[in-house]
């Protein structure tokens, strides 16, 4: 009997390692290939970290990097300014609209980017007319694009607290709606807000279709152009963008993990006070 169990455990171990190795190779091989390819020209990586020389030699790439970083920051900001108060208001005053808002926020996930662009093109004709053709105008489209991910993150954060009671408690203590948002709601959904912002940044840094089809510049569009003239630099920048997104997502899971751990640690460290420990009346 013991032999059968040992054989089964060994088989499971081998199976686990095989699956892990195959998946590891599947994911890592392209990275290794990218590293290998991008280091063929020894000038590539030093140039990538030397901003003045990079912007001089590849002005389109530098413009794309600046555009993407600005788009990411502004999209995250616009998304938070729009979504957090809306989500809080729906929970406080219009709970019946919650399903509808959730549905609306998830819509961009179901519509392919190419279809979205077809719809956005006439709108952007007006955007260009009023605001000019700056690549920063993509922020409006990206804010819609990130809604499914950002809404989920913020909604999960709001579900973890009793927003209605907290807001009412703050109101009864004399807080206006602005104070309620800044001093009560936001500090309690901080990690949800960070999650939404990180997801937004990761998504915007990797966006190509909308920018390309609306004739705007961003990192991915610049990489695509660069690929035609300097393949090694294009691959190096792609790798950097991938790593940046990876680091952001890693930070995201670390924040979640730390929050869970600290909650568990506090529960373990602090004896839960029970009724008989109440101070005597």
């Amino acid at each position, binding site marked *: 009997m013991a032999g059968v169990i040992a054989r089964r455990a060994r088989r499971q171990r081998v199976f686990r390692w095989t699956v892990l190795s195959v998946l590891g190779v599947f994911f890592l091989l392209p990275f290794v290939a990218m590293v290998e390819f991008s280091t063929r020209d020894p000038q590539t990586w030093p140039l990538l970290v030397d901003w003045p020389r990079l912007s001089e030699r590849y002005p389109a790439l530098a413009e794309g990097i600046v555009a993407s970083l600005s788009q990411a920051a502004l999209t995250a900001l616009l998304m938070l300014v729009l979504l957090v108060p809306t989500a809080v208001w729906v929970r406080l005053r219009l709970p019946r609209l919650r399903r509808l808002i959730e549905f609306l926020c998830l819509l961009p996930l179901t519509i392919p980017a190419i279809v979205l662009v077809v719809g956005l093109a006439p709108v952007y004709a007006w955007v260009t007319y009023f605001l000019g053709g700056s690549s920063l105008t993509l922020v409006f489209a990206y804010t819609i694009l990130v809604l499914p991910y950002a809404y989920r993150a913020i909604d999960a954060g709001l579900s973890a607290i009793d927003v209605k*009671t*907290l807001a*009412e408690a703050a*109101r009864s203590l004399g*807080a206006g709606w602005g104070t309620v948002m800044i001093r009560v709601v936001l500090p*309690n959904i901080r990690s949800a807000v960070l999650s939404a912002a990180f997801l937004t940044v990761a998504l915007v840094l990797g966006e190509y279709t909308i920018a390309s089809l609306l004739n705007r510049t961003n990192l991915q569009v610049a990489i695509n152009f660069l690929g035609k003239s300097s393949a090694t630099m294009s691959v190096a920048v792609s790798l950097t963008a991938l790593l940046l997104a990876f680091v952001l997502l890693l930070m995201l899971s670390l924040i979640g993990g730390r929050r869970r751990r600290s909650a568990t640690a506090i529960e373990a460290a602090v004896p839960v006070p029970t*009724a008989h420990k109440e101070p005597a009346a």
Partner: protein
Amino acid sequence: MTGVAVQLTGLRRTFGTVHALDDLDLSIEPGEFVALLGPSGCGKTTALRVLAGLEDADAGRVLVGGRDVTALPANRRDMGMVFQAYSLFPHLTALANVTFGLSLRGRAKQAGRAAEMLELVGISQFADRYPHQLSGGQQQRVALARALAIEPSVLLLDEPLSALDAKVRVQLRDEIRRIQTEVGTTTLFVTHDQEEALAVADRVGVMRAGRLEQLAAPADVYLTPATPFVADFVGLSNRLPGTVTGDEVEVLGARLPMISPSASPSVTALVRPESVQVTPDERGEGRVLTTSFLGPISKVTVTVGDLLVVAQVATDRLPALTPGTPVRVSLRPNPVAIL
């Protein structure tokens, strides 16, 4: 600190087809402790939330200290509130929670005042703890300190004890009354627990379907209920058939005074268990069915023919009243309500 008078006049509030408040009038004297009591959905919480400004009334007026505050938002009504759900801000310590309202008013010596309030509710040793490090009772104490710290004109308590276990509930209930007496703030306390309401309030308002059925001192609500609903809702009552004779009703052979006259000769009388006396008697018409030990007082259920009669007896009499014992049932001549 002295309290202010509160007046709710002709309040109406409708949710869909439900009238949560139906022309509600309520007056609270300065410094008075009034409890609103009633079954779920009777409108007691809605009344409190309208007074707090957290809910708008469809009609009616809210006067605090003679000033009409009906149109004022919640944050400008100067009321302290303790909620049924734990409402402490999770990211702030107990002390910071109590300081919150003070900081909005830009008061100097905030920390001193907050510490004083924590001392008042007997929880100053936990000032640096976060809400998740406190028990339910401790959290509600901090919530009470937070509500009182801003020196509100009215203190509103929305079932603050219902999430606590029985022992803490009784402790905190008495604490709330002590503190309210000490600070003298006009207080409205909403609860569905009649024992709680009767134990702490100066006056108890019994609500039904958005209206006040009776507003009186606890003893009056219990002993001379204004309506059959109040008699039925407050305290346990036997429903016994009776025959009206003049101003009295005859129930189980006893003539009892009626709280309100009845037009019908055949009625159902609501008789309190403490008005029922049971005495072991071989020739008695009743038989003990069950007994329940409730501490110093116990409950005995007796069958008299087809009727079930519940009596309240001193626990030391229980050994003589085992199930099956023949008993004589008599009623004390206390006034009874008629259905």
